[in-house]
Structures are given as structure tokens and as C-alpha cells.
């Protein structure tokens, strides 16, 4: 889907239902505007992020939800632990080159996982239970990649600096 499209549509709807448009309306109507705006905001929150969108599609097709199945692919868990140790060592050693390489490789793996998620999520309506579980594990693993990337940019000033190097 076009990533910019939900945003334009969102703004148009937000303009119509926002409670600031109903200051002179009755208390009931104002409360309704507030509730509707909350729904519209929630819809936009889900639609504007591919992971949340996939999560939502999975929920629609019957789950499992993140609460029901917390696991990630077993091989990934081992990888993550090794990576975390290596990143810590590189940080202690102040090896910026290595940290940059880790960032690139993790970003690439995250993107590859997103492609798999996208392919499965497009057809959630037709997925059997084992495939839905597989999708769940993939979605769960994104959080691990994000945590690692967060750790790599733990010093917020480092983000700003790396951005200026471009």
C-alpha cells in the first residue's frame, strides 16, 4: 500500500471529527467527537506502521496474539544473544567501525524479515494455523531487532552525529 495515503486520508477525517470542531455542540455530541477521534487516531496508528498493520491483520484472521504466543524463532534467540555480547565488546573497545557494521547487518535482517511478514500478511485470510503462528514469530522478532538497533544508538547524541556525517 502507499505509505503516504493513510496520512492524507487521516488528516481529512481528523478535521471532520476532532472535538475542537464541536465546542458549541451538546455535551453528548462533544463526547462522541472525542470517542470518534480516539478511534480515528487508533486506526491511523495501526495503518501508518507496517508491523502494527501486520499485527492487526493477524488478529483479524484469528491470531495468535503477542500475549498468546510470545516466542521468536529459536535460531534467532541464539543469534541475538551472541550479537548482544559482540556489540557490548565493540562498545567497550570503542570500535565504531564494528558498531556501524552491526547496525547495517541488523538493519538488513530486519528488512528481510519485514518482506517475509509482508508476503504472509497480504494473504492472512487464507492462512492456516501453522502459517499464522509463523507470522506471529516473525512479527515478534522485529521487536528484538529494534531493541538491538536502539542499543546501538543508546547515546542519543551519537544519532545526531552519524546523521551529519551523511
Amino acid at each position, binding site marked *: 500500500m502507499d505509505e503516504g495515503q493513510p496520512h492524507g486520508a487521516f488528516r481529512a477525517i481528523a*478535521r471532520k471529527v476532532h*472535538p*475542537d*470542531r464541536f465546542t458549541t455542540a451538546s455535551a453528548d455530541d462533544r463526547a462522541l467527537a472525542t*470517542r470518534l477521534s*480516539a478511534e480515528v*487516531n487508533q486506526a491511523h496508528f495501526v495503518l501508518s506502521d507496517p508491523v502494527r498493520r501486520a499485527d492487526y491483520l493477524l488478529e483479524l484472521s484469528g491470531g495468535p496474539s503477542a500475549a498468546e504466543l510470545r516466542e521468536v524463532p529459536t535460531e534467532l534467540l541464539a543469534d541475538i544473544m551472541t550479537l548482544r555480547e559482540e556489540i557490548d565488546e565493540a562498545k567497550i573497545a570503542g570500535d565504531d567501525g564494528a558498531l556501524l557494521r552491526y547496525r547495517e547487518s541488523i538493519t538488513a535482517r530486519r528488512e528481510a524479515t519485514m518482506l517475509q511478514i509482508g508476503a504472509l500478511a497480504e494473504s492472512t485470510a487464507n492462512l492456516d494455523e501453522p502459517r499464522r503462528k509463523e507470522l506471529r514469530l516473525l512479527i515478534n522478532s522485529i521487536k528484538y531487532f529494534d531493541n538491538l538497533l536502539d542499543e546501538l*544508538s543508546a547515546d542519543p547524541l551519537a*544519532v545526531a552525529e552519524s*546523521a551529519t556525517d551523511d
Partner: protein
Amino acid sequence: MIDSRDIIIGIDLGTTNSLVAYADEAGPHLIAGPGGEGDVLLPSVVAFDDTGRVTRIGREARAHAVERPTTTVYSIKRLMGKGVADLADDRRRLPYRVERRSGEAGRDVATVVIGDKSYTPPEISAMVLRELKSRAERHFGRSVNRAVITVPAQFDDAQRQATRDAGQIAGLEVVRIINEPTAAALAYGLDRTEQATIAVYDLGGGTFDISILRLEDGVFEVLATNGDTHLGGDDFDQGLIDLFTVEIREQFGVDIASPTIKQQLRTLSENLKIRLSERDSASVEIAVGTDRVYRRLITRAEFEAMIAPLVARTIEACSRAMKTAKLSPEDIQQVVLVGGSTRVPFVRKLVGEVFQRHPYTALNPEQVVALGAGVQASLLAGVQRDLLLLDVTPLSLGIETLGGAMGKLIPANTRVPCRASETFTTFKDGQTNVKINVLQGERELAADCRSLGVFELTGVPPMPSGIPKIEVTFLIDQNGILNVSATELRSGQTAGVQIIPSHGLTRDEVRRMQADALANAREDMTAHHLIDVRTTLEFDLHKAEQMVERHGRLLDAAERDALVIEIKELREFAKVCCDPRVLNERREAFNRRTLPLAELAVKAVLHEPEGARA
């Protein structure tokens, strides 16, 4: 042009100064005080007498701070929505007494104690608001009952509620609470229709906010906000105060304990800071005892080293906000400075560095928030309809879980209004009440987050334990204020939600305070009226004396003497009379009595030859 019913004013209720504004078709305007055009800043200071009665508000109150430190209340915004437990540092620094309100089991509401009276922070803020309200009423020539009030973006629910309560106590319906940086963006964004991403860096007297917004199609959308509600120019002053205090102790062996000297130090430090924005060095002289003087020259470099850790905290918050918005400096087209503390060159320099561009300061940083509040007020009043604000909640909202953890329901930086639901059940058979501790904050443990209060769900139909399914909906509205509702799903019954705010006022307390404030305002009005009548009476008496002196010969002696005695008696009576109506009746009666003499006097003057009249 503006219907009285539709007047909504915009108020910047600041730590140091407050302002009131409105907007019409031509744009936003500030409303000036009695000093005329340019007198737009109302110092957020309230002076009391020793018994705890309000004597002055604003500039005159601030002028009294050094003379009467323990009865002059300033920086009250730092206390809004707080408990005494939160205010250890402030209590040490503030010269007036701040105590925990008595008789409050399980609650911790800070109050200011003056003489035998005590006032909660919303009541004191209400005094400032009432002054702004009457400025607006004088401007429009009619009553004004609705307002938009700004708060720091980082204000939590308790602080926002306290601000809304202050409005209600002042007799203002607070139609909207908006975030200060968002208001500033609104003031700047009026005539720009293009698409842009801007950062608003707002460093005021007591609070710091950074917000990143996207402007597109007339929609102001906050992408991320960050900051600190307890960091501002006051803390810059405090660095200087602490330095002087230590040096005076070392050089003179004198401990500064007197509130008057503490207050003097504060004023001197504030002035020094302001001078250092213009010059490379500045000095202070402080009398120690009667014959000794402490002199100190401070260079700008020394001052900058002193405030560097504080400014660094704001810069880190800027980076966090960019990270949340998933933006880097080159994605941001404009950086706007707001708040008096952004006049400090060191602050400007560091902000310029982190965003890699010169900050924009076309509008007065002390006025821009109020102007934006005026714009939002006009949007709500329907004067303008082409803009819309979409803001976010600054803090994560959650509930305390069984193990004492913070169970997050709504993450920080979620667009408001937003909603989350959670299902609860009972632990005992027949249990009809369930208590939920509602939290705000980013920490993992409930104890490290801020408790907004205990929400007690009542009227749950009695059932065996674990059977009821109580769905609780947490809704954060466009003001960033939490609304909670609950339904028992099996019976479909709406459960009652009783809130015991941890640091705030209950609805009943606010209503009571509003009634008290109204009664006090009437008393104040009486006092005001009495002064007016006395002044007018004195003028009349003086005129009568002149007439007796010049034209007394036109009356017979007995009449003349009676008049002289009456003037004397009335003057004495004016000193003791406390009822303006009674005094005014006496004044009118007196004028009726002097009328024949006045007529005789006029005739006499008319018959005098031309030259004698002058």
C-alpha cells in the same frame, strides 16, 4: 463584531509572568493591563498581608517580594498538581511556607501557608487568572467566562487538572488546555500555508519543553514531545544564589538565613543573569550586616560553565524527541525559540548546534505562547476555522499490576484523543468494589511512576470471585486529561468510578473554592468601592470648603457654622465607615445640603466683573 457569548480568551499562565490574548480576523492581540499599551506581562506573583489576605497581584506584588518575602507567593506553577513529597528542593528555596494539607488520609496536596490561612496552588493561580480575566473584561467592556489556558507539554494529568481547577475557581470555563510549544507554533504558523517540520524549544522560568511538529494543509501535528517540568530559568538563578551563599559564608562567616536577604539574592541573581545575556561580565554587591559588602564579578564564561549541565539536559531531550519522531536535524526546516530563558546566548548556541541551524526568533519569546493561545481560542469560538491542532500525550499511562509493575496501556507520544481498555475481575466472592492505581511515567516499577490516584470501581454486581468482567476504558481527551469509565460486561451494568486524586482536588473541593473565591472577590470589590467613595467624598468636601471660604458670606452665620461642622464630622465618619453604600448615601445627602450654597456661588461668580474671575 464579537458576540459576548462567544468571547474566548487565550491565557499563558506562566511560572514568572502571565499574559492574556485574543484573536480576531486581523490576527492575535495581547490585552494590556492598567499601565496601557506595552503593559502585557502580569507577573505571576500574589502578595498577602500577615493574616493571609490578598493585598496585591502582579507587578506591585513582585515589588514587595524583597520587603515581605514570607507573604509574597511566586513560582506557584512549580507547585501545581504536586505533593509535599515532590517538592523538597522547592521548599528549601522558596521563602514562603509550603506544607502538606492536613486531614488528607492517603493524599498529599501541597498548600501555601500564610498567617492562619492556607491556599492550594490552584487557588493562588486562580488569583492571577482572575486578574487577567478582569483585564479582558475591561478591554471588551463585558464579562468574559471562557478561556483557553496553556500548560507545558510535559505536564502530567494532575498538573493539567490543577490548571483547569484554577480556571474554574477564577470563574472561567476552561474550554481547552493546550501545550505551550504547540501554541507557539500556532502563533508562528498563521500565515504559512506550506508544508514544514518545525522544532519548538521552550525554556521558561520553571519548565522546559521540546516539541517537533509537522505543518500540512493547516493541520499542526505534534510528532514528538519531550522535556522536564522542573527545569528552567529559576534554576539558572539558583546556581548563582548557591554560589553567593557559599562565598558569603566563607568570606564573612555569615549564614544567610533571613528570607529577606534570600529574596534579595534571588532578585540580584536574576538581574545578573539578564545582564550577562548582553555583556561579557557583570557584578553584584551585597551588604553583609551593616558595614561589610560582598562584591563579586561573574564572567559570562563562568556563568555558562555553571548552567552547562542544565542546558545539556535540554539538549539531550531534543535528541530524544528527534529520535521519537524518527527525524534527523536536516529534516527540520525551522527551530523556534520560546520562553524568556532562551534569551541566554549559551542556550541559543547549543540549540543551534543540535539542530544545525540558526534558531528563529521573529516573535517575542515571552509573548508567543499567549498569542498562540489567542489563536486557538478564536478557532474554538469559530472566528477562524481553517486550522487544527493534533497533539500527543507526553507520558505513558498505565496501571499498577499485581507484582507492583507499571502495566503500560497508552505509550508516551500517542496522539490524543486516545483510548485503551483493560478488563478487571474480583478476587473475593460477592466483591462489589475494585480499586485500580492509575500511573503516568516511563519507568518499569509502579513505585517509580506518578500515581494519578486510586480509581475505585463501585456497583459491581455481586458474583463469585473471578467471574465479573469489568471493562475499564481510559480515554485521554484533546486536553491531555484522563477520563475513566467502566462497564461490567456480563451484566452490562455501568460501574461507578470514584477518583481519589493523589495530588489534586476533588470536584466538590473545587466547587467550594470557587464559591469562597467569589465571596472573597465580593469583599475585595467592597474594599475597592469604599476607596472610590472615600476619594469622591474627599473631593466633594474639599470643594465645599473652598465654597465656604470664598462665598460663605452669602450664607447667614449659623448656616455657615453648621456646614463647617458637618464637613468635619463627615471627614471623621469616612475614616471609620466600612460600608461604601452608607458612606455614599451620606455623601449624596451632604451634596444636597450644599446645593443652595453652590447655586448662590455660581450666581455670585456670574455677577463678578470679568477680570476678577481668574
